[in-house]
């Protein structure tokens, strides 16, 4: 009889901070303590609160231990599991009240979240199909195969209002309907797991934490459109996800939940994995298809749309991981349940990867319609070090920067577009007063310039020219005409590029031009970077009144740019200074500043 469960987060964040080792240590310590038969250790998917990783949760108490180190394992085993005493110093502070543990659901981080796509993440062992089944796994597939016609399935998905979570927000049911309406024959279901936005890891977490829900949803999609084969296109840089998918596929086949004659209904469906080699553009659905076909990952013109002519020229649906993660839950709980969450045109929930200048870096899933302020200030725990919020970037390199004035806008597809950004796949990067918005725009543009496939002229040459203009501005050589040129290039590229990558690449620039034009102008007119980021516009100066002449800065300067006698004020030679900031870090008297 197992009396306690230790859930060790096996998501990538915790994994990279050593959760794998914790798992082994728990096993060892439990054996040593003779508790091996009554306490079970389980490696789960992501809990979401990655900032506090590695995370270990002990049930039945629900003790949420954060930032657990190897040396803490023994204490948890002996104190908590052997003696029944909580290890308070490791408990997430918000869950402690007197001597009891508060439910995680009542913490700021989790209170406003609604886990649908992430339902099983952090709950089950993703490498064990039985745990998935115990949580109603494959019930949706069984229901679909035994109680519903393909048309019923499509109707249900249409009625749910589910829209694609990969960025575009196209109604999933419509996509399925198009493919279903194509003449019978070879058709394909593709899962787009080529998550590429910098900082985004929603899909990764689902694949790592709940791989079976993707397989199940793909089989349901196959049934709905009349396809018997699917591909999961996943980044090779996601080794844990790939490994768990492979295990899941093997287990599902073994259990007769993939393959021929599934659940004795005569329905056949199988899945194979294709690894992406790391090109961002392969997340664009037609480029993804080319890549699966073994071709260069260049986008194709649309129309024809993949639902009509997709993989190997056959009708194909391509759904993002998070989209698929919603499918089984919609089938099980009904379209009405799903549609009861969210806003008028954006139903359900959305997972965001919160990052940047935010206390609770991690993965959050919120009902559509939650405001940006709630996400950032409540769930995200606000901005560290009391700094002032400046902007939040959504949608990754295809999205835009949203200023404080729009923080109370309810998050949904249409609202984000209206304010110059997009939902995207769910990256959400918070910026504070120390971020230079011109520099941020440049950062995202560098990314898209690097990741452009090079097929169409506007994207290949156009965004490169935009980047050159931004480099000119941030190095103090910008002129006012450059801003006009930049803006007109933005619109040209949006209107004329072949695929979504090019069509959205100007968004970070356009949105910052729209909301932070003053910062651009400061760079151009005053040759000044207000946030103090753009190195070429910075000068480091030592305040002679504060400087004690301790020489520490001069000794730390890697460029020998600081001179001065002992106990006399030092001086920085800006011609030699490389603006690394080592002097500021070393000064004990706050005598050095940059401007």
């Amino acid at each position, binding site marked *: 009889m197992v009396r306690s469960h230790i859930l060790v987060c096996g998501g990538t964040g915790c994994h990279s901070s050593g959760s794998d080792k914790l798992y082994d240590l728990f096993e060892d310590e439990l054996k040593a303590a003779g508790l091996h038969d009554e306490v079970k250790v389980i490696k789960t998917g992501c809990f979401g609160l990655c900032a506090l990783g590695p995370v270990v949760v002990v049930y039945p108490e629900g003790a949420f231990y954060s930032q657990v180190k190897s040396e803490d394992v023994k204490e948890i085993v002996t104190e908590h599991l052997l003696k029944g005493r909580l290890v308070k110093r490791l408990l997430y502070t918000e869950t402690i009240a007197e001597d009891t543990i508060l439910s995680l659901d009542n913490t700021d981080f989790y209170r406003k979240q609604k886990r649908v796509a992430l339902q099983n993440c952090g709950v089950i062992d993703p490498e064990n199909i039985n745990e998935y089944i115990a949580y109603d796994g494959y019930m949706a597939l069984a229901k679909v195969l035994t109680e519903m016609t393909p048309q019923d399935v499509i109707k249900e998905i249409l009625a749910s209002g589910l829209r694609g979570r990969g960025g575009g927000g196209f109604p999933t049911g419509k996509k399925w309907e198009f493919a279903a309406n194509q003449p019978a024959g070879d058709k394909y279901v593709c899962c787009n797991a080529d998550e590429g936005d910098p900082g985004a890891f929603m899909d990764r977490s689902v694949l790592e934490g709940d791989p079976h829900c993707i397989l199940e949803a793909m089989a349901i999609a196959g049934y709905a459109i009349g396809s018997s084969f699917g591909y999961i296109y996943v980044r090779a840089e996601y080794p844990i996800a790939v490994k768990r998918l492979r295990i899941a596929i093997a287990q599902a086949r073994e259990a007769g939940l993939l393959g021929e004659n599934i659940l004795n209904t005569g329905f056949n469906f199988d899945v194979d994995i294709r690894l992406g080699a790391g*090109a961002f*553009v392969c997340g664009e659905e037609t480029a993804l298809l080319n890549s699966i076909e073994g071709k*260069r990952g*260049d986008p*194709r*013109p649309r*129309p*024809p749309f993949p639902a009509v002519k997709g993989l190997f020229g056959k009708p194909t649906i391509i759904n993002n991981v998070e989209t698929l993660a919603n499918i089984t839950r919609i089938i099980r709980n009904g379209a009405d349940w799903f549609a009861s969450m969210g806003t008028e045109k954006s139903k359900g929930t959305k997972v965001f990867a919160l990052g940047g200048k935010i206390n609770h870096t991690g993965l959050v899933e919120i009902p559509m319609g939650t405001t940006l302020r709630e996400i950032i200030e409540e769930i995200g725990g606000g901005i560290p070090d009391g700094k002032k919020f400046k902007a939040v970037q959504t949608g990754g390199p295809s999205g835009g920067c949203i200023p404080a004035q729009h923080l109370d806008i309810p998050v949904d597809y249409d609202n984000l577009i209206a304010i110059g950004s997009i939902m995207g796949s769910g990256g959400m990067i918070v910026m504070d007063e120390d971020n230079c918005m011109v520099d941020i725009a440049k950062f995202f543009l560098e990314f898209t*310039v*690097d*990741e*452009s*496939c*090079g*097929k*169409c*002229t*506007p994207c*290949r*040459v*156009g965004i*490169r*020219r935009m980047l*050159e203009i931004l480099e000119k501005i941030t190095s103090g050589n910008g002129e006012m005409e450059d801003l006009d*040129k930049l803006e*007109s*290039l933005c619109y*040209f590229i*949006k*209107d*004329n*590029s*072949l695929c979504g990558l090019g*069509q959205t690449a100007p968004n970070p620039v356009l949105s910052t031009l729209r909301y932070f034009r003053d910062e651009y102008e400061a760079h151009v007119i005053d040759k000044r970077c207000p946030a103090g980021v753009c190195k070429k516009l910075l000068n480091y100066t030592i305040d002679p009144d504060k400087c004690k002449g301790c020489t520490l800065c001069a000794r730390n300067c890697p460029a020998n740019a600081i001179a001065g006698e002992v106990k006399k004020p030092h001086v920085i030679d800006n011609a030699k200074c490389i603006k690394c900031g080592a002097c500021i870090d070393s000064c004990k008297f706050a005598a050095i500043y940059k401007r």
Partner: protein
Amino acid sequence: METKMVNLKINGMSVSVPQGTTILQAAREAHIDIPTLCYLKDINEIGACRMCMVEIKGSPKLNAACVFPVGEGMEVITNSKKVFEARKVNLQLLLSNHRRECLSCVRSGSCELQKLCKDYGVEDEAVFDGAKTPSTIDESATHMVRDNSKCILCRRCTAVCDKLQDAAVIGVNKRGFNTHIGSAFDAPLNSVACVSCGQCIVACPTGALHEKDQTDEVWAALADPEKRVIVQTAPSIRATLGEAFGLPIGTNVEGKMVAALRRLGFADVFDTDLSADLTIVEEANELVERIQNGGALPMITSCSPGWINYCEHYYPEFIPNLSSCKSPQQMFGALAKSWYAQKLGVDPKNIFMVSIMPCTAKKYECKRPEQSVNGVADVDVALTTRELARMIERAGLDFVNLPDETFDAPLGISTGAAVIFGATGGVMEAALRTAAEWITGDPAAPVEFCDVRGTGAIKEATYKVGDLTLNVAVTSGLKNAKEVLESVKNGEKNYHFIEVMACPGGCVNGGGQPLQPASIRNNVDLKKLRAKALYSQDSGMPLRKSHDNPVLKEIYANYLEKPGSHKAHEILHTHYTPKSRFTGE
């Protein structure tokens, strides 16, 4: 099933076109030309260059007309301010990454990019100048030069290399701003299995690809008093050279071409047609021998050096099937430097043999080590039609108004059978004319074999010649050749004789022919119009069978003895070597 018609409006004008038509094609129906750069009909429909952008009512973006299918009730605007501005910016962006040496560029005047820049008033061509994509000039190949600093990445070259010629030795390397065209791992062109056909050059809209210009070598030879500079012109040149001087496609300019060559200073203006006749006589003899003595069948023609390269690299198992006859270009050179040199009493080393060819692979062919007699190369320089046009221009000849002159004797005398060598099916028909008469012994045997004519991909015919049933096939374009070879390989087809020309449509559409912009190539069947000029010349000629050529009769009587003789083999026949598919070796 009847095709459904779709009604739409283009610039306010109603148009009705079949479903599935693109906006570009529909606009053409309405006599509106939408500019393109990457689009090659049926070959490269990828929507990459973004020149053909148009407004579609209801769509916030502009859309690429070349790939966008029409829809019922669609309203398209091709000429709004927004469209013009977009095209102009697009051109400016292309120019910002283009080595602009337009004054002296080989494509100045025929450059599609240049024309569009003029049409769209791109005066400020440097407005977006910035870093340029790192590029190199690949001069490794014998026949051509790739200068990526002028490449606009339209991918027309890679499309023809893959889809028409099945070689796919060039493709897209790297990505984003570093994207460039090259061979795998950026290997030089001479180290991959390029067949030298030059179809990429005629597809290129700019000066990024061009033949290796050898006109200076010819000018130097012409100026050398020690050299007797002899020129031969391939059958198809007369049907295409006029295009370089603004004459309509399909104008036969044989007389003016001869006049021009004479004025350029060539000592003898001869005709490759003569050696085409010679090829037929030798090849027909070889075919009859193979059939009678159980030689390797099907026998496959060897006139097209692009095809020979393809066979060596991609289908070496068919090398025994290749006719051992040298190509007409090489036979001509060999004859000029042996029989003719002897007749003149000139040292063959002092004969400088220039050939005017429709073909870039001929530049490679004449450098092949096995194409020489006694250490003297049969042909010294093979110029393309384009290079000849350049020489004529530089010499200031008023080509269009030159008088019509005739080839010199003796090596300028030929038959109609040789003239049609320039079009796909021509070699087959010429061979059949001779074989039919030889096998039946009847001089009244048929002259015209129309089943093998035309621009079809693969043409087949069965002829009863005497007691013999002859299965023949004719194909052009290496993708089609592959299909024929595969059908022979898997036993599906049983031919006696196959004619293969590397370039689609044969030599009239060769990689060395005058350039026509995509706007023409997409809408006019160049192959057909140019071939027509050759067939009409043939039909008007008194002699139409190669073996009736009086000069050949004399050469055989006094020099070669008989077709397939030891002497003929020594001078007129050759051999080929299997090569790697993945390297140039």
